[in-house]
């Protein structure tokens, strides 16, 4: 046991570097993907048929294609058309797309859950369409969507491990590299798993707390 602990101690800095990159990729993907998801959720209800179909295509491809394929596409596919991305940029691009696609559905459901009376009240008050979205619909819709979005963020941290396949030195990659040099895969993968859990379990508890809080105010 003390042997494992000292092994963990030796490699902890390298593993934590990996965790840092995992968190950065996840954070960047959420920061780009969730606003994009909101934009898509609003635009699939646009009057322009072209815009509607375009958004629908972006959402359906983003949800239909596995995140792994999007990653491969961004890193290995795009250079064929002259776009070379670093592994970090490719990971963020692919995971942002995935995030945007999934969260647009979550947010759309949230927006639809806002009672009809809220829209009527803002209509009757004479709020412009943009103000109605900004001050009434979006804040309330996002509130409804918040627990599901937080849950999705946890999944995204786990999905960031897929970037292992495009040579991004994130948490799983680092564990794998350490494994190949020390041949002690088991303990290092356990440590990696433990670190994922250290982030995901509190986040999941937060989701639960959030949901209870929301239920109280509804």
């Amino acid at each position, binding site marked *: 046991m003390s042997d494992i602990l000292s092994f963990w101690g030796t490699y902890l800095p390298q593993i934590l570097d990996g965790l840092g990159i995992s968190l950065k990729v996840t954070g960047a993907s959420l920061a780009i993907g969730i606003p994009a998801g909101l934009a898509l959720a609003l635009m699939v209800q646009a009057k322009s048929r072209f815009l509607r179909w375009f958004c629908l295509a972006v959402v359906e491809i983003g949800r239909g294609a596995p995140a792994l394929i999007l990653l491969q596409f961004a890193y290995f596919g795009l250079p064929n058309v002259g776009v070379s991305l670093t592994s970090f940029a490719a990971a963020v691009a692919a995971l942002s797309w995935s995030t945007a696609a999934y969260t647009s559905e979550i947010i759309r459901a949230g927006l639809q859950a806002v009672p009809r009376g809220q829209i*009527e009240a803002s*209509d*009757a*008050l004479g709020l412009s369409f943009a103000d109605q979205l900004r001050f009434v619909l979006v804040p309330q819709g996002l509130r409804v969507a918040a627990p599901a979005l937080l849950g999705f963020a946890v999944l995204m941290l786990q999905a960031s491990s897929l970037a292992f396949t495009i040579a991004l030195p994130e948490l799983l990659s680092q564990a794998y590299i350490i494994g190949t040099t020390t041949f002690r895969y088991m303990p290092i993968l356990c440590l990696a798993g433990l670190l994922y859990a250290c982030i995901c379990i509190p986040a999941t508890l937060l989701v639960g707390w959030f949901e209870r809080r929301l239920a109280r105010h509804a």
Partner: protein
Amino acid sequence: MIAEIQAGPRVPEAAPNILEVRNLRKSFGVHEVLKNINFAMRKGEVVAVIGPSGSGKSTLLRCLNQLEPASGGEITIDGLTIRADHQLRRAELMGLRRKAGMVFQSFNLFPHLSVLRNISLPQERVLGRSRAEAEKRAHALLERVGLADKASQYPARCSGGQQQRIAIARALALDPQVMLFDEPTSALDPEVGLEVLAVMKELAEGGMTMVVVTHEMHFAETVSDRVLLMADGHILEEGPSAEVMRNPKSERAQRFLKAVMNR
């Protein structure tokens, strides 16, 4: 029941019409809900719209500010005319809604905003008032509806009657020419409804032009100047409150009033 306020002479005969409805029709699919409605209101007048469920009262009210677009006819509020057969421009629609304040049966306050913000935000966005100005007005109106201490609360922390009074303050803050009330007390306990009716009565006495769709017969009889009694999408009877409610002419109106007055 004693009529405390005599209807009629409160509004001068010469007061100009502020609201005119001509040949208003509304259909939902093949179902015609409003059939050729005509009426006019003078500034400061209070009109109660009564009648059995499904008679088109709420639809009429909702057509006045185009929450339901009319299928035919025209509506003039304070000089602004909306015609059903003309494509409504956004600016006209906004203008119309600026002139008409509305209070809903289910209050429809914004639950994510404080009571103060519910009243100040629309002023800032719709009328372009500064935040300080809007909040000053909001505080004054909260005072007027007896809820000065609720400014920083959220709507969920207020009772139904309080929420409805806040909704009235929110609508008043935009300085409407006409106030539209859609069964404002129907979702409230009778006792709580009284506090809302008291605010409405004070508003009427202050000279506000009001259209009130209601099942509160006492309010209709004592506070409103005139009653429109609707049935099956028509205005069945129209006239000074006491006259319509005490001496209805048609058999249908007699039947309705007998049923509700004896409750």
